[in-house]
């Protein structure tokens, strides 16, 4: 690895519902000697409401963050949240392609001129492309032997394919490779990139219960012990709403849903008490009892 430092965009949920994602991302980077530089005074990227309602604002909000990121002298901006990542990357691609759009939107942003010289990656992508499987494997001191993990990518880490430009839009394998390098087994199953209902969580909950139940059904059938995710919205839909789904659909899942970074930190030797596993609704400790 050349650049052992990246610009970090946490996204709003990192300081709320997905605190444990950010926390374990930090632990993982500490083990790998990677420095993290958070964008000073970053703002919400607008996901998902801004792009539902208006075109310009949906570009201006991420653009401000991209401009602030360019002030730090790192080549890559890394984002844990899949939704923030998607908005930031789409904005970057559209601004880079279309100079008149760039000028128009930039006129609404006070914080300087956009140059387009910072790459945007999800943390999953950064782990897979920049850190690399071999370096991850080297750090493993506690192999997660016999743990069967369903890697769930959701939509936005690999789609739209011309925006994400990473892995497969239908059957991605990057997280599976990372999980296997930790000594665990990545379960093969067909719903890796089905939508969980995402931002309908609050405004159209019925749809989330329906879509998320389909994912949980398939995961359960494929014999996974645990689900690993890389998106705060997927995590909260599959975990926080799991009990509601069980009640509504008359099912019994009890499948814990963790961030892939929590499993990385565990395999890197951090004690379970440091992984914020108690933040999850479905009990995680039983499944991880032997580690």
């Amino acid at each position, binding site marked *: 690895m050349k650049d052992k430092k990246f610009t970090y965009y946490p996204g709003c949920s990192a300081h709320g519902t997905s605190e444990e994602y950010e926390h374990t991302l930090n632990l993982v980077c500490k083990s790998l000697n990677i420095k993290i530089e958070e964008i000073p005074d970053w703002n919400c990227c607008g996901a*998902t409401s801004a792009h539902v*309602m*208006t075109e310009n604002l949906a570009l201006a909000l991420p653009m401000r963050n991209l401009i602030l990121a360019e002030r730090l002298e790192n080549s890559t901006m890394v984002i844990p949240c899949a939704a923030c990542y998607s908005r930031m990357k789409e904005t970057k691609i559209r601004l880079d392609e279309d100079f008149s759009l760039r000028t128009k939107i930039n006129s609404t942003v*006070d914080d300087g001129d956009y140059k387009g010289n910072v790459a945007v990656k999800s943390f999953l992508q950064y782990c897979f492309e920049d850190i690399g499987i071999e370096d991850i494997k080297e750090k493993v001191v506690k192999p997660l032997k016999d743990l069967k993990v369903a890697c769930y990518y959701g939509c936005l880490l690999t789609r739209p394919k011309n925006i994400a430009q990473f892995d497969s839009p239908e059957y991605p394998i990057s997280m599976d490779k990372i999980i296997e390098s930790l000594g665990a087994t990545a379960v093969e199953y067909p719903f890796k990139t089905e939508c969980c209902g995402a931002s309908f969580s*609050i*405004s159209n909950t019925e749809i989330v219960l329906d879509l998320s139940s389909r994912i949980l059904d398939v995961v359960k059938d494929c014999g996974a012990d645990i689900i690993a995710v890389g998106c705060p919205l997927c995590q909260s839909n599959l975990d*926080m709403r799991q009990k509601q789904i069980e009640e509504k659909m008359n099912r019994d899942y009890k499948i814990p849903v963790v961030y892939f970074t929590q499993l990385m930190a565990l395999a890197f030797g951090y004690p379970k008490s440091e992984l914020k596993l108690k933040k999850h609704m479905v009990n995680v400790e039983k499944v991880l009892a032997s580690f």
Partner: protein
Amino acid sequence: MLVLKNLQHNEFLEKVNQKSGSNVLNCYQCGKCVSTCPVSGYMEITPRQVMQYIKLAEDEKLFAANSTWYCLTCSSCSARCPREIEIPRVMEAVRHLAIEANILPDSSKIKSIKKFHDIFISMIKRYGKMFELRLMAEFNLRTGQFFKDIALAPKAIGKGKLKFKSEKIKNLKGLKRLFEMNQKLESEIQNTENASKHESK
């Protein structure tokens, strides 16, 4: 006859193409989008039909349907579209045009989805960052669902998932300007569109 009339000049199609960056005319109605879409079963007009309605300049029918509001932007459809149409961007373009024309489907579900987005955006405007607990509380209040997710909230708060304190960005002044300028941009676009409509009449 409807088809013939609308084939002459389809301003709606042009606008959608321009806004979405795709050419809807490329759609050959295979229906792969419908079978892939996780919510097409909930839509009054399926994604395949949406493409055809655009070709037929049926903007009013599309504006009155729930379809574009149900699109989750998951992009499963576009991953499989053999004509490489970015269907979620097309859905988005139609929705934006409906918002500009101020036409909403007559459905309480859509009204509550729109309310959610309005509250979300107003919160960014106020703080520069999202405040999840307040978003949930305000949504429940403003849609009259006082007890929605009431069983979840205490556990989520207890686990520190939902915070009582909000974060604010420092440059709120710049953010205020950003919102105002973008509002101005939107209304400028609308004004030029209205003016050109007036001229063509």
